[in-house]
């Protein structure tokens, strides 16, 4: 890969900019070598040419003071930065900037766990703290608090929250569990939101809203500031944890499963983010496609049947867990069991019913108790050189919608020659439908097809009234463009805010379709 320049910056200015950055963070934390230093700042799972996301440099400040001075340098040269924290946003672009030439602002070195509050159940972390880091720290200090992690345990507590990420315990909706935020604006001002704005506040991480407008949301999936610290509520270890799995025989059971689970979820008998997982996802984490089928196109039903019986899985597989004192779990289980037993063919499993080397069960069991791991990356081992992008529309918790979304994706996906590999993560009143579009990263034609399919899915979903909850850097404009009610009033409002809080347009231009004034015309 050749070196590139930040958009609108001349070579000699770039050299001066780098020299200034080095004065701030030291030579060793400004990265420019396209062979050894910058490949790690691109997305390993792109469907577009890597050149489109090649950064010009990366800079890694160690603390807020250095960050403040990095922003000053960026403002001076009007250089676009792209903020990352742990930088593992794979399936949605990894650490790669929206456009070539940006300077990646890498906050991984700001990785202190500032507080663990056992009594009230929260932790305060800097951007670079991964789930694994926090988990190991809690273990080390003998804490009885759980982490709630996304499936990839190397992701970050703070950046996953700012991306509206999800985990799998009752604390799985990360935005809901965040309380107290420190954010640096583009002009270098450090702001504490909520109760933190009161000097000496006793309740910064206990009450979310403070006085006046609640602004934390302005800094999630956004480019209005750089979040430097958050409080995150942690769940106390419950007196009992009993994960379960229910398998269903028929593809069409998705309708009934979803109808059964809505009241269970709304009434909080299922407290955690529960999962309805399609069989190929279950298969992909433990076997490969070629173990079963070497033909092209959708896997025939006879083969799918064999997979189901070999792996002891259903066409759909529901994962949930009971939490609490044993008598409570016993009672709740009766209700849940009876509800799902109304679906013919439903089979019920607890830990003792699944094998010790059942990869799918074992990692779900860990996730339900917030034990970080990386097993889900196995989905990409489904095919050689597998990589993937997630298409993630939000669905109502109804059988009709789940089925409609499933068919909408499945049919287009099969037509384009890909396997449907997907799951529904069930939240409070919605389901995050995650379609894992797996392609061969070394096959240019397949990547082009995957990219095209993704665009078609965005349009078809929007036409049916479904929008995505986050997206890959390559589709930010396209998806932001579907949220266009009343002549794109929301996007226009975002742009107004952007112009005020970041007039030089230095922070993550193009993040979720929000461009600074200077770059609005050129948006791709």
């Amino acid at each position, binding site marked *: 890969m050749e070196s590139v320049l930040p958009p609108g910056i001349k070579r000699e200015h770039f050299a001066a900019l780098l020299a200034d950055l080095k004065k701030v963070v030291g030579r060793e934390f400004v*990265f420019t070598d396209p*062979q050894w230093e910058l490949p790690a700042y691109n997305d390993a799972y792109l469907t577009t040419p890597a050149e489109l996301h090649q950064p010009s440099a990366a800079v890694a400040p160690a603390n807020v003071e250095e960050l403040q001075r990095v922003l000053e340098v960026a403002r001076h040269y009007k250089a676009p930065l792209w903020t990352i924290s742990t930088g593992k946003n794979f399936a949605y672009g990894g650490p790669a900037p929206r456009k070539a030439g940006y300077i990646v602002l890498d906050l*991984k070195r700001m990785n202190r766990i500032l507080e663990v509050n056992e009594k009230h159940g929260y932790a305060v972390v800097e951007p670079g703290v991964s789930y694994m880091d926090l988990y190991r720290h809690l273990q080390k200090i003998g804490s009885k608090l759980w982490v709630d992690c996304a499936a990839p345990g190397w992701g970050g507590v703070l950046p996953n929250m700012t991306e509206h990420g999800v985990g799998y315990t009752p604390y799985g909706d990360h935005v809901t569990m965040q309380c107290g935020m420190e954010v640096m604006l583009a002009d270098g001002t450090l702001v504490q939101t909520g109760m933190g704005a009161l000097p000496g506040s006793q309740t910064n991480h206990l009450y979310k809203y403070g006085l006046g407008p609640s602004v934390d949301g302005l800094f999630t999936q956004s480019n209005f500031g750089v979040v430097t610290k958050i409080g995150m509520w942690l769940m106390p270890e419950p007196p009992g944890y009993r994960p379960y799995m229910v398998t269903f025989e028929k593809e069409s059971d998705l309708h009934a499963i979803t109808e059964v689970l809505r009241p269970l979820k709304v009434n909080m008998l299922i407290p955690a983010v529960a999962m309805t997982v399609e069989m190929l996802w279950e298969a992909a984490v433990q076997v490969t496609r070629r173990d079963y089928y070497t033909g092209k196109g959708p896997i025939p039903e006879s083969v799918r049947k064999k997979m189901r019986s070999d792996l002891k899985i259903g066409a759909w597989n529901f994962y949930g867990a009971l939490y609490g004192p044993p008598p409570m779990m016993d009672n709740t289980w009766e209700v849940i069991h009876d509800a799902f037993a109304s679906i013919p063919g439903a089979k019920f499993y607890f830990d003792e019913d699944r094998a010790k080397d059942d990869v799918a069960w074992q990692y779900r069991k860990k996730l339900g108790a917030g034990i*970080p*791991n*990386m097993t889900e990356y196995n989905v990409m*081992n489904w095919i050689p050189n597998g990589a993937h992008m997630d298409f993630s529309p939000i669905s109502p918790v109804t059988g009709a919608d789940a089925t409609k979304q499933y068919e909408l994706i499945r049919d287009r996906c099969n037509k384009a020659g890909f396997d449907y590999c997907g799951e529904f993560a069930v939240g409070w009143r919605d389901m995050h439908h995650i379609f894992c579009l797996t392609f061969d990263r070394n096959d240019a034609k397949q990547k082009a097809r995957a990219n095209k399919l993704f665009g078609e899915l965005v349009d078809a979903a929007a036409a049916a009234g479904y929008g995505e909850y986050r997206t890959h850097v390559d589709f930010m404009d396209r998806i932001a463009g579907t949220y266009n009610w009343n002549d794109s009033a929301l996007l226009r409002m975002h742009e107004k805010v952007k112009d005020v809080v970041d007039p030089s347009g230095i922070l993550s231009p193009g993040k979720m379709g929000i461009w600074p004034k200077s770059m609005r015309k050129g948006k791709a």
Partner: protein
Amino acid sequence: MMKARFMSEVLVGRRVGRCALASVLMSATLMLGIVGAGGTAHAASAAAVSPEALEKGASLFVKNCIMCHERGMEHPGTAALSYLYGKGKGALADRDNLTPDFVRYFVRNGRGLMPAFRIGELNDEELKVLAEYLSAGPHPATPAK
């Protein structure tokens, strides 16, 4: 260098079968002047690495790599390498044919589903120690998670 990198990416990508891969890896690694998986065993002699460095390398391995490379098919690195090199041959800690340059190359460039590591998360000095540790393998007693 650039050409070699390109070759390795393209060639290693074309996984026709295990034999083809081995020979391809061999040519790619020879071009790079590094010997690893497909090459002959040229492990750095363990004697050259101090026990302190080995210990540090082991802890870096646990911190950064083991979540994907621990023994067991639930770990995506181990699973991928088992698919490539054969059942039971997927764990990095069991390898006797890794070399520092080979490890360094993969960590900075990634391959397959393994993304590259940034210097901000694993610096060159740490990578050197980690690579020496892996090259001094096998390590039957790698610390568990």
